[in-house]
């Protein structure tokens, strides 16, 4: 059970695939236009329910309840060995060894 007033993330379909405008590449044409927003849940609900939220800009938005207390998962990525090779190369060119 997710309580009224919790900060949540919801998902909705803005346009079904068949409702999309014609000037799209074929692959995009086959997909619906989907939307994600966040806000305060307006009534107790379960994950997967159709719910109403109040967003940070005080908008009412409806959609399927996805997550409670959503957080960002992006990062600095995995190690890229080429980057230390660039560092080494630049230091050699600038400060030592042959050009």
């Amino acid at each position, binding site marked *: 059970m997710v309580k009224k007033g919790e900060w949540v993330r919801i998902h909705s379909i803005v346009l079904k695939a068949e409702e999309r405008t014609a000037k799209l*590449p074929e692959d995009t044409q086959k997909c619906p236009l989907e939307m994600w927003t966040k806000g305060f849940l307006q009534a107790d609900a379960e994950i997967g329910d159709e719910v109403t939220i109040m967003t940070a*800009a005080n908008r009412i938005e409806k959609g399927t309840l996805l997550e409670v207390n959503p957080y*960002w998962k992006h990062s600095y*990525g995995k190690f890229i060995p080429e*980057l230390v090779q660039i560092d080494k190369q630049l230091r050699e060119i*600038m400060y030592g060894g042959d050009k």
Partner: protein
Amino acid sequence: MALAKDYDSVMGRSNDIMKEALGLDYEEFESGSIAFDYEALMKSTEYTLDEINRIQSRTGVGNTPLLELRNLTELARKYAKPGYGARIFAKDEAANASGSFKDRRAACAVAHAKKLGYKGVIAATSGNYGAAVASQAAMQGLECVICQECFDSHGVGQPEIIEKARKCEALGAEVVQLTVGPELFYEFLSILEDKGYFNASLYSPFGIAGIETLGYEIAVQCREKLGKDPAMVVCTNAGGGMVTGTARGLIKAGAKDTKIVAASIDLTGLHMASDKQFNMKSCTTGHTGFGVPYATDPDHSDVPRSAARPLRYMDRYVTVSQGEVMYMTEAIANLEGIERGPAGNTSLAAAFSLAQELPEDEIIVVSETEYTGAGKHVQPQLSFARDNGIEVLFGNPKDEKPGVNVILPKDPSFFKCVDADINHFRASLIKKACKVHNVTNPTQADLEFLAAETKTNVDFVKDVIKSL
């Protein structure tokens, strides 16, 4: 009675929604043909350069440092013929309140919204502009919604765009995230209509007037520090605002001999509205996927007439590869001791190559840097590329195939920006303008307008039209 909110109904009300949301009637600038009064549109902001400077200074925007990149200059000289290799400078726009030059645009637009009594602002952007609008809205006490094209149909987002969403939220904005496709504009209009907000468009005259201070500052700082104007200013080009505003500012400062070079990452072959290809690009801005269509058809934006019209101002349009920009992002951190995001490094990669064409006593200025952080940094960008099956390797960047590989220069001698055929873009703009306005017999005013639009002359325009 509640208004119908289906796609056709909302799009059908687009003109009325826009008029309400901009506090500006674009009709008064129209001639009824191809030509419109661009300078009158720019004057409609009624802000002088001094006033804009005051607005920006109040909110931690503008008067950013002009940094000399001494080590990168020295490196470039190793590959130039004797006596060549201009001094490279960068305008450190990362020092603005939200970390990019976009604060200049947002400061002006949001201050205007506040003055006109709007309760909130909205912008459609996946880039730094969202953070800039959110930051300014926070300072002015306005509500803020940012609409982002963010995910593919599997819900996977570009790390660079996700980071910008995080930053917008951190600054108090609501972020609406959508999958790939131009119908984002429908959702944008629908929210705009419901909330009665100001459309803080990237392409409004307020936004572009805000960038003029950047060009002006570059001229003044070069004169104070170095006693002369720069030979070249290199601007990363996407929607065209940076080129337009910076060039207008330089002109206002009287720097008439400074050449304006636009630089974009070459993403030829990737379709911008393709769900599959969305995450095959390893950069999200400053690329030809935006740069070319906006330059050749500037009014294809979220306002009736765009104030960003880059072909009016650019002297050259060059491209660089993703690999060159990634290498340069690592180089500026290692050799200059400043970690900066990718946007400005597109023009820096071009400037590194262009500096070698100019004598040592000339000045070349890169018009911006931007903040960096998780997601928008060379490491997550390359890591994301590898996760999406893109090969990352050392070699000749000329062999790079967007969507297939990212080729890091084997060594700095492999940095070579490529001149795009600017006359081809100019002709393309003229053709599109004739087509959009359904004009076969342009008036004298149209011909002069198109000559100004393309920085050419009436004969050039006539030749293009004759070939139609």
